[in-house]
């Protein structure tokens, strides 16, 4: 059973910043990012034919790292070169007692998937995630 009920949105002065903000929103679905210490660094690279698919890839990469490393992240750094993204995420091991994770995210979806720049030059990066 799946439910469309959580969307995440990052807003920033650049596309990269919007991607970083979207990643913080992803963590907020699971737990309060303020309680996550950025102790350990994980490097991330991904590729997709357009910026929207690239956002989904970036988030799915984080979901994969969280699931296999049993970690949660609170600080992010992204650079995008055309279709390539290289990024870093800082976080710590999940501590169930302290982080009290509400839900695990199964994947970033293409629903409401948007990466765009508005007339003021502000970037927005968003999609719905499946929990």
């Amino acid at each position, binding site marked *: *059973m*799946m*439910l*469309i*009920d*959580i969307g995440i949105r990052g807003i920033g002065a650049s596309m990269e910043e919007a991607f970083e903000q979207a990643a913080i929103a992803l963590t907020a679905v*699971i737990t309060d990012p303020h309680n996550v210490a950025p102790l350990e660094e994980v490097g991330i690279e991904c590729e*997709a*034919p357009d910026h929207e*698919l690239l956002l*989904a*890839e970036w988030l*799915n990469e984080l*979901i*994969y790292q969280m*699931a*296999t490393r*049993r970690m949660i992240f609170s600080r992010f750094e992204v650079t995008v070169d055309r279709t390539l993204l290289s990024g870093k995420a800082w976080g710590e091991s*999940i501590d*169930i007692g302290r982080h*009290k*994770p*509400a*839900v*695990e995210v*199964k*994947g*970033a*979806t*293409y*629903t409401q*998937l948007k990466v765009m720049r508005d007339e003021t030059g502000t970037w927005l990066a968003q999609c*719905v995630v*499946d*929990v």
Partner: protein
Amino acid sequence: MDTLQFTRHSETEWFIKPSGQMRVPAIIYATEELIRDMDQKVFEQVTNVATLPGIVKASYAMPDAHWGYGFPIGGVAAFDPGEGGIVSAGGVGYDVSCGVRTLLTGLAVEDVEPVKKQLAEALFRHVPAGVGSRGKIKLSDAEMDQMLTGGASWAVGRNYGTPQDLGRIEEHGRMQGANPEAVSARARERQREEMGTLGSGNHYLEVQRVAAIYDQETAAAFGIELNDIVLSIHCGSRGLGHQIGTEFLKEMAIAARGYGIKLPDRELACAPINSPVGQEYLGAMRGAINCALANRQIITHLTRKAFAEILPQAELKLLYDVSHNTCKVEEHEVDGQKRKLYVHRKGATRAFGPSHPDLPDDFKKTGQPVLIGGTMGTASYILVGTKESKELAFSSSCHGAGRAMSRHQALKQWKGRELVDYLASKGIVIRSPSMRGVAEEAPGAYKDVGEVVDAADEAGLSRKVARLEPRVCIKG
């Protein structure tokens, strides 16, 4: 939704005739009230599915349909490979083969009431639940391959359960046609420590009381009586299925362009059944079905261990195990001709009627049990497959309640701890690693599952047999 968009064919059948790119009509089964409450997105999505190549007869939505990813949740669609039919990762969903397994216990409500709390503790101790929980079983690469092809039957081979269990699982516990080579290293890595774990979100394990019986004869055939205690497990293919869903969604979104398929929505990502990507997905997705069946089998084993500690007289026997996120090859008669179709059910339960050849002998006379999960404070239902469902929607029925409120809204309205205390006052024991998770899954955040089930019954998709009410709930 506005009912004027439909031609109403009966009390519960809402028909949308083909227009624009639609190749076939779309049909939603629901009461007028449920239709009015449904999001307009369901209309958009059920008609979008009708545009996909090779679709047969109609694009269907069940009474619990709601806005999904590409396909509506509660969507059913069958495709013919001979007519360029497609397979879609978005038509199956991220949690491949998510489903419900119900076990009989041989206990009555008075046996369980005095030890409810101890039972909840034992179940919570034995069955890993929630984010970041790990299973005790770690699979080597060779074992992972065996699990992917063997499903529940692999698990039984490792002494997680008995051979009798397998007769009470769809596909007899083992989905044919799985291809471990199509399952990526990442999907395997995500699963390595997750065998026998419940997961989170709306996944649960519940000890339930049979609170009402609607069809005495079928209930007797299923082995259930009023005030019996049964147990239900709702979960899926864990990290492996999620990763396969994620990877193929991207692969198909890119591949569809190459195959000249025009997608009205990116989430409808699909590939022809007879294409390399289509075949690879089918092989991987069937591996994920086996993963879900193995997972529910291991959880059954852990549940039996927990019961043995508290209620050793219990005998936990499977009633049935159904999956509600799948694509399966089935034979269906269309316009008098038998055809092999690829039936996608996304948030919809298969519901074979009496004398269907794929059913175990025990259910040949009655039709299969159709297991519908509710929420922790309300009710779940057991229904039975009907003969007419074959004609109505390729033998399919609803799968659950569906949310009425977002997680965010639910968090604003309820506190986990208060909810647990409130449910305790109603005699329902909740154990969960996350109080925020409990609040997000508050019963009030869901639609009334009773209305959905009544609509499925009225439409003839399946027939009501019994209502189950929770006594103990382990929430992931």
